[in-house]
């Protein structure tokens, strides 16, 4: 009904969007965390990587300092490992995205299966890296 477009409407009408109440299936969670991890990578992981690249190639002593710090379990190595894990998360969810672009895994069941698969892979990777650091 195109007449609806011209109807005068009240200035204020509430809109219902409560993310805590609206049910979000696993694919939706993967999507939003993919976005958040991308933002984190841009502001944190990338600058860290540049820092590491610069100092690891600057001098032998700088290289050894970095290598020692990152192989011991401490605040810095944990933070750096976590940041690279966020990068890995973005890559894993990104690959899932690329596969859906070529029409692999577009059905509802395939989509949630691939979502859980990505989460399992990522949590396993996180567990392995953190174990390697701390044990």
């Amino acid at each position: 009904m195109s007449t609806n477009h011209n109807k005068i409407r009240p200035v204020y009408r509430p809109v219902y969007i409560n993310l805590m109440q609206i049910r979000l299936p696993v694919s939706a969670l993967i999507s939003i965390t993919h976005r958040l991890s991308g933002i984190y990578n841009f502001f944190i992981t990338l600058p860290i990587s540049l820092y590491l690249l610069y100092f690891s190639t600057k001098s032998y002593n700088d290289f050894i300092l970095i290598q020692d710090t990152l192989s011991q379990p401490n605040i810095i190595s944990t933070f750096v490992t976590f940041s690279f894990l966020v990068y890995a998360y973005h890559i894993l969810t990104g690959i899932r995205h690329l596969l859906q672009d070529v029409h692999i895994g577009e059905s509802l069941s395939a989509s949630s299966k691939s979502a859980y698969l990505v989460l399992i892979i990522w949590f396993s990777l996180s567990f392995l890296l953190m174990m390697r650091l701390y044990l």
Partner: protein
Amino acid sequence: MKGSSLFYWLRLSALFMLGYTVWVSSFILINQPVEYNSWISFTNQTFFQLSTTFAAFFFLVHTFIGLWTVGTDYFTPRTLGFLHPTLAKYADLIRSGYTFLFVALGVLIVTTTLFIIWS
């Protein structure tokens, strides 16, 4: 701006950076613990310098498209208006500020990378 171009460049840059990441990570993981000399010779090779330069360029393309999309989703009069009505008035200004921030940071990152690689 054609939508299909943005779609294409986002994926192309992603694929290049994926390949680059796998390549560099493989070197680091296979050569554990990494020796200083082998790391220097790896990063000094022209192929590494060129790849990293391309990676920096694709990083800019990928992140600019992504962050612009985020900005036009959340920093709009409608979306910010859901949080608070006064925010809606300044939405375009906030989005401009956000855009300036990530563009400036992106350019800084790439310039720094080129400096590190080529000097």
